[in-house]
């Protein structure tokens, strides 16, 4: 576009020059011919010379003018045809499904309907409305093209009984009644893939544009649209006169065609040459295309406002943006607002300048009434209507979930060409669950501030990344890459790689449990100091967070309390390569260090990467690729691809059950105990805390039967966040999970898993074996674990205040650091 402008400038400069030459030659020639009367022979030669030059000059002028016209013609046609079809890929949320037997959450359904722009009305008299009554929810649904077919306009009625959906009836537009088991609300369009221009639009056809909008627009902007040839000289003259009278620009003489051309080359430049080009292009446009084609292009092209970095183009998208509803559902007064907005997209923006916008709307309605476009009763009703920008719809439209969009883009780029994404009008149906996303955002907003306050950390200094994934199919329900949910810059969930610390421990223990003839959950592992000698590196002496060594502890307890020494001892016994293999097998692709520090999580990963590992655990040992897209439809509604459920068993189910049991114990009895506070029910939650050296990174990964949530909290400058996994990320995790529709995690034990009583002693010396607990155990482990009591000890958590070790004291001398630390010391304390 810049290139085109530059060219225009040059060409115009050229044509001006030739124009002055013509002037000079024509004024000169009469005097020259006068002289020719006396000296005829000389004069004849002179005339020939003049004629020669005149012809040449005319040719010199005409050819460029013609060429320029042709050039403009090609340009404007290309633009017109191009814009007619260039539609960015549109991205939709998941559809909400409502079905028999489902527990009915009115607030949730209401929020969904509000965001979809459905209006609560006393009767179901028009599409896009709903009505709640005692035991019934009735919705007049819009038409929507789902991946598996068209859902026509229809009325549905849900009968509710003791909080559940008891029956669902459908009334088609022809009045036919039927019963069904399941219905869907349509998904919400929440974004588009248009990384270059950020221009977004939804295409509306002329026949779908309400007549009052067309009439109103013409009455206000271009009364002679159907009679002029692209330019309206009378209009220009009128405008010039009133502008001269007023001494400033009060009226524009531009036709709609000119406005459309201006929109194609959006620049604020107002020069005569620009105006001339615009007129010429308008005339050319009218020459090639019908009035209806131009009008339709106008409705789809004009700039209507800005939402973040997304430019709202066209009335269709503007209607969605301001009212959350399609154009044909709008009332007259709302259409008038759009006409007002079109006149000055930022000046008359009804969200930012409601008063100004209302005044302009009334002017629009006045003009419509004066021009006879609307009758008095319609006018009266509209002029008295409030400026009804739905606050939910307005904010919903700005909810563009940039973090999740980042994931969608990444997934799309793997399968689609950039050109198709930008112009083919693809419809992308994603896995985003706006209710879960909202829950996550709310939890982050409230908890992050609370954590900062509690810890005396500067407000706003902490950052966060989080993801919520369905455990059965890997669908990402929600994602945050910044504490500000509408921030569209650096996406930490996808791109910030931080050491995951103790989040890797379960994979050390899983590797052990996969040798059931050697290890069980009850096996003793040594929590005692260990020195790891490495070629080329200084010796490594890891420490526990509490600085203590706890001696022989049961494997399940070592994980529950996140003991570093026990983990490193166990890991060295197994061998680092075996543990690394497990990490790769459960879903981590990139290369990573093979040093023993891997055992304590010296592997930088993004939230999404580590969640892939936990997803494998959460789905019972089946590696399930994380996905953000369910299906893609082409611009003309043909199904292009369906991202099917794809699983691969990488952990035998019995081992998955054992490690998940241990992770449940982390929550029931271990470092994550604090997350249980606030839960109403026992969802069998499983999870793991993670903390890195100097409390730089606070991690928590945990799951119920249906959702896995992974949270990271830390600082962008990589300084200490003063938080452990339990005091930071786990708080946000708990807050979010408490508000989600959870299902209990049931471990799928098969016949090879038994329950065994394992005995403990209170006193290490007496071996009283007075305590016991029941643990799941594999048949193969029975031989090694039939040892009453052994050296197993009960740690009294209440007095042993394990959890307190994970809470750094305010004012701890953690930050000043004089001695340079070795690489692992920098990762773990």
């Amino acid at each position, binding site marked *: 576009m810049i290139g085109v402008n530059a060219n225009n400038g040059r060409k115009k400069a050229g044509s001006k020059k030739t124009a002055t030459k013509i002037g000079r030659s024509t004024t000169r020639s009469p005097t020259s011919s006068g002289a020719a009367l006396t000296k005829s022979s000389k004069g004849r030669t002179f005339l020939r010379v003049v004629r020669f030059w005149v012809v040449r000059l005319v040719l010199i002028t005409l050819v460029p003018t013609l060429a320029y016209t042709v050039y403009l013609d090609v340009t404007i046609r290309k633009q017109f045809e191009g814009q007619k079809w260039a539609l960015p890929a549109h991205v939709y949320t998941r559809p909400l*499904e409502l079905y028999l*037997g*489902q527990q009915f959450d009115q607030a949730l359904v209401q929020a969904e309907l509000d965001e979809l722009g459905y209006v609560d009305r006393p009767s179901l008299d028009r599409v896009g409305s709903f009505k709640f009554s005692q035991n019934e929810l009735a919705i007049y649904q819009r038409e929507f093209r789902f991946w*598996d077919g068209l859902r026509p306009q229809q009325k549905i009625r849900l009968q509710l009984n003791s909080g559940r959906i008891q029956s669902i009836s459908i009334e088609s537009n022809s009045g036919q009644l039927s019963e*069904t*088991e*399941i219905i869907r609300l349509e998904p919400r369009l929440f974004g588009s893939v248009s990384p270059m221009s950020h221009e977004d639009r939804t295409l509306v056809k002329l026949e779908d544009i309400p007549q009052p909008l067309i009439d109103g627009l013409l009455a206000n902007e271009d009364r002679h649209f159907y009679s002029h040839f692209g330019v309206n000289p009378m209009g220009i003259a009128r405008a010039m006169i009133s502008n001269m009278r007023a001494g400033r620009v009060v009226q524009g003489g531009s036709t709609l065609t000119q406005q459309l051309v201006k929109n194609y080359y959006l620049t604020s430049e107002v020069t005569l040459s620009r105006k001339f080009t615009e007129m010429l292009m308008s005339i050319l446009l009218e020459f090639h295309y019908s009035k209806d084609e131009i009008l339709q292009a106008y409705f789809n092209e004009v700039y209507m406002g800005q939402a973040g970095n997304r430019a709202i183009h066209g009335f269709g998208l503007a209607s969605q943006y301001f009212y959350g509803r399609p154009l044909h559902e709008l009332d007259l007064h709302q259409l008038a607002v759009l006409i007002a907005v079109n006149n000055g997209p930022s000046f008359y923006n009804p969200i930012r300048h409601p008063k100004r916008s209302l005044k302009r709307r009334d002017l629009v309605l006045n003009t419509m009434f004066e021009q006879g476009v609307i009758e008095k009763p319609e006018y009266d009703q509209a002029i008295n209507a409030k400026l009804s920008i739905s606050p939910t719809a307005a904010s919903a439209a700005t909810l563009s979930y940039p973090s999740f969009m980042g994931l969608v883009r990444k997934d799309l780029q793997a399968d689609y060409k950039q050109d198709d994404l930008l112009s083919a009008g693809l419809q992308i149906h994603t896995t985003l669950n706006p209710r879960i996303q909202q829950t996550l955002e709310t939890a982050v907003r409230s908890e992050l501030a609370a954590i900062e306050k509690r810890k005396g950390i500067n407000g706003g200094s902490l950052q966060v990344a989080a993801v919520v994934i369905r455990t*059965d*199919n890997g669908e990402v329900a929600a994602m945050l890459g910044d504490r500000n949910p509408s921030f569209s810059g650096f996406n930490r969930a996808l791109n910030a790689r931080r050491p995951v610390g103790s989040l890797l421990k379960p994979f050390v223990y899983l590797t052990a449990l996969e040798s059931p003839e050697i290890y069980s959950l009850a096996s003793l592992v040594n929590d005692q100091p260990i020195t790891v000698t490495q070629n080329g590196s200084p010796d490594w002496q890891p*420490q526990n*967070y*509490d*600085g*203590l060594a706890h*001696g*022989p502890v049961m494997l399940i307890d070592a994980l529950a309390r996140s003991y570093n020494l026990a983990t490193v001892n166990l890991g060295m016994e197994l061998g680092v390569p075996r543990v690394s293999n497990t990490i790769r097998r459960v879903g981590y692709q990139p290369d990573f260090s093979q040093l023993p520090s891997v055992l304590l999580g010296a592997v930088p990963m993004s939230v999404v990467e580590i969640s892939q590992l936990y997803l494998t655990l959460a789905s*019972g040992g*089946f590696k399930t690729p994380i996905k953000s897209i369910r299906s893609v439809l082409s611009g003309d509604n043909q199904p292009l691809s*369906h991202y*099917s*459920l794809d*699983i*691969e*068993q990488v952990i035998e*189910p019995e081992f998955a059950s054992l490690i998940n*049991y241990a992770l449940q114990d982390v929550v029931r009895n271990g470092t994550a105990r604090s997350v*249980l506070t606030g*839960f*109403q*029910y*026992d*969802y*069998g*939650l499983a999870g793991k805390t993670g903390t890195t050296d100097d409390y730089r990174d606070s991690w928590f990964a945990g799951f119920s*039967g*249906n959702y896995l949530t992974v949270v990271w909290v830390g600082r962008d400058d990589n300084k200490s966040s003063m938080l452990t996994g339990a005091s930071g990320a786990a708080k946000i995790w708990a807050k979010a999970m408490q508000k989600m*529709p959870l*299902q209990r995690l*049931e471990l*799928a*034990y*098969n*016949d*090879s898993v*038994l*329950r065994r009583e394992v005995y403990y002693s209170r006193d290490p010396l007496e*071996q009283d074996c007075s305590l016991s*607990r*029941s643990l799941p155990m594999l*048949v193969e482990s029975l*031989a090694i674990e*039939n*040892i009453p*009591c052994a*050296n197993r*000890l009960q740690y009294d958590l209440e007095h042993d205040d394990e959890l307190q*070790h994970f809470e750094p*004291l305010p004012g*701890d001398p953690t930050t000043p650091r004089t001695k340079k630390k070795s690489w692992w010391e920098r990762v773990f*304390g």
Partner: protein
Amino acid sequence: MAKLIRKSRPTKIIAIGLVKPFILITLTFLLSACISTSIIDVPSQDPVEVEDRAVVNGEPLPLPDNNVLTAEPLSGDRPMSAVVMRLVATAGDQRRIGNWVSAASSLERALRIEPRNGRLWSRLAEVRYDQKAWRQAIQLAAKSNTLSAGNSNLLRQNWVLMANSYDALGESAAAEKYREKLTKSSY
């Protein structure tokens, strides 16, 4: 740092290698070797729930009722919920006319409602089998198996499908393994 401050606390190191317990251990180890076979022969059908409960402020949290999703029980041939039956029927129709992608999509919809319904995973495995996506068929059948403990009909059905898929892949040893399971379980 916190850990340095707390260094002064008494460290709990347990004396290992005491002679008395060691003898005891060895004895019980030998004993257990004798009795363990009888335990193996009687696998527990009913996972115990003791102690596996979350406790807050000394009170165990109550178990949730089926608060959102009507989940299928772990095992047994209880009737499916109406909505899942409907989606399964739809998938069946789609499968019959060879529209496998849609059939899979309908079953995935059902799975979002009842993710622990082993029969749904098995149906999905069948669709993949129809599509000659043998590996996926095997994986989905394996998933179904993990959720179908005690439902011998479904287990057998999955084993047949797995054996056939392995045959199709030309992996006869693996196929044989599942055929063996079939014959064993028929007693």
